[in-house]
């Protein structure tokens, strides 16, 4: 058996080993997974500036206009 063949076998063995590992994963129900994602979005909604908008006075990227009292 030449080197090319045995490399393929090695590769195939590794693939099977990896797949075996992945089959053993404990999976949770999508309803539970979806609930967690939705909950996270809800809980952090008010603290998400791109979602809520940012007041000009607290926006570090907006140039502040200064008022001068004459």
């Amino acid at each position, binding site marked *: 058996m030449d080197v090319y*063949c045995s490399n*393929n*076998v090695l590769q*195939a*063995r*590794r*693939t*099977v080993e*990896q*797949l*075996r*590992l*992945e*089959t053993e*994963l404990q*999976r*949770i*129900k*999508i*309803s*539970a*997974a*979806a*609930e*967690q*994602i*939705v909950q*996270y*979005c809800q*809980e*952090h*909604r008010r*603290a*998400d*500036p*791109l*979602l809520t908008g*940012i007041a000009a006075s607290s*926006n*570090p*990227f*907006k140039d502040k206009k200064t008022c001068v009292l004459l």
Partner: protein
Amino acid sequence: MGEMEQLRKEAESLKDEITAARKAVQDLTLQDHVAGTAVVGRVQLKTRKTLRGHLAKIYAMHWGTDSKLCVSASQDGKLIVWDSYSTNKVHAIPLKSSWVMTCSYAPSGNMVACGGLDNMCSIYNLKGKDGNVKVMRELAAHTGYLSCCRFLSDTEIITSSGDCTCLLWDIETGTEKTVFAGHLGDCMSLAVSPDFNTFISGACDFTAKLWDIREGQCRQTFGGHESDINAIGFFPNGNAVITGSDDASCKLYDLRSDQELITYQDSSIMCGVTSIAPSLSGRLILAGYDDFNCNIWDSLKAERVGVLSGHDNRVSCIGVTPDGMACCTGSWDSFLKIWN
């Protein structure tokens, strides 16, 4: 060739087992779950700053943890560290190789890294004693281009490469600690989990893989995309992954149910996704595309709720500040724009 045929059959049977196990937990879809939730209102972000200075295509950008400084890499052969509030250039670092494809800011703010067609990851010390920024280490071991790099700390960095592997490096010794092999195509992008225990990689074999950093093992593989995955990121809670692909779609994969929950696509979008980032709460997903725009998606309802137009060429990179205050887009038009 008896063993090959046997292994092939076993692989197919294991793949069927995984498909069945994934189906077994499909008691509901994400769409069902959010049927009663309203789509977020139209998101209209404005360009607040334009960072001008690069003389060629920008390929990558990364925010520092202070949400103020960021680093960008351009094929003009420079890494620029910007103060995004003032638009001042804090450092302009000339590179040995101008074919740079990625850059990263260390969480400490002490270092930046970059790499590309030189197959190396170069680490630069920003806090050198004499004030000059110098190359601290050149991490060489990949046999293909460096597509992405992310610091775990000042002593460890993870890189992804066109040689189909990812590597964990010890920066002090300049040597590889762990090889993450398994992808069957160029690794294009990587992202580290919020708890720093795992990372995900997206590749040209159309899959995303979740890796255990300490064990060096691939824990999960996610398929579904019909072309190269160019961009990848973690959903902020660390339990889901977002990907962007040349197939013009983005996907959300949940780690614990081990499958795709939702696809973000529109028949009017026919070009590849180059970059992706979630907003702080995860409700918005910002994605950069080849058609010069960036689309903003409602992550739960899979509807487009905003567009960032302003670049005159492909949006190659995108990043949301750690404090969620702004998004930065980098483009082949040589400019970076800060939006909020």
